[in-house]
């Protein structure tokens, strides 16, 4: 049940990414190109997602258990540390350079696009490098 639900959520998420234009690296870079001919589309992707999210997560945060009766694992960390900023800056450089972030990269893997495959392998290598780096805490069940 949990796996089918996760699969359905992933499918819906991926469909949203394709429809929104996030799986087109040229469009992503067009959004990041403030000094050129700017494509504001991706601001609407964020706006639309957050409009739903603001209401939905308000409800989620009030709940002690999931609708299926399982435990909630929403993040509780509040500290602003160097890891957060340095990691996010590095991510932003890679995002600007290639035009892919993790979700759209995985969706593009399903299209068989060779450049997306190369990017995704490198991305997984980067994640694995971090995951297995000595002293790294194990991947939290609740990221972000």
């Amino acid at each position, binding site marked *: 049940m949990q796996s089918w639900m996760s699969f359905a959520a992933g499918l819906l998420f991926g469909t949203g990414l394709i429809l929104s*234009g996030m799986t087109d690296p040229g469009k992503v870079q067009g959004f990041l190109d403030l000094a050129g001919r700017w494509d504001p589309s991706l601001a609407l992707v964020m706006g639309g997602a957050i409009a739903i999210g603001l209401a939905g997560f308000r409800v989620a945060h009030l709940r002690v258990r999931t609708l299926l009766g399982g435990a909630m694992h929403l993040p509780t960390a509040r500290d602003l540390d160097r890891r957060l900023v340095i990691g996010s800056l590095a991510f932003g450089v890679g995002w600007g350079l290639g035009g892919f972030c993790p*979700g759209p990269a995985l969706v593009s893997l399903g299209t068989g696009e060779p450049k997306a495959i190369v990017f995704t392998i490198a991305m997984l290598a980067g994640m694995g490098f971090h995951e297995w780096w000595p002293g790294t805490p194990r991947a939290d069940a609740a990221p972000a």
Partner: protein
Amino acid sequence: MSIAWNHFTPWASLIGGLLIGASAVMFALLNGRIAGISGIAGGLLRPRRGDIGWRAAFLLGLIVAPFAWRTFAQLPAVRIDAGYAALVAAGLLVGAGTRLGGGCTSGHGVCGLSRLSPRSLVATLSFMAAGFVTVFVLRHLLGA
């Protein structure tokens, strides 16, 4: 700055964003977790017992999305300007950066901002700023 009106896709991007938000909320309410792609993928690279199925199912849903899309319509065309070397560098930065920073565009950008998390606001401002600067350097200083 000038607006690239010919590339602007307000409705598709807004509706795509709504789908992404709906998926994230559904995931939080039913699975009790953040739909953060980098965290879900990262956790699979150093798996824990009982923590594999839902992660693999969500990522499979992302990868299957373009196949599902193709049964109804043609996939939108994409443009990937970056060469293979740049994509490898970008992938490594995105992979390691998102794990170090604890999230990406989905975990911090969509879910975190929806949850009004100060950590996610700092992360999102950091990766956006780094993305803007990177594309500026690529397109306007290096002329790529």
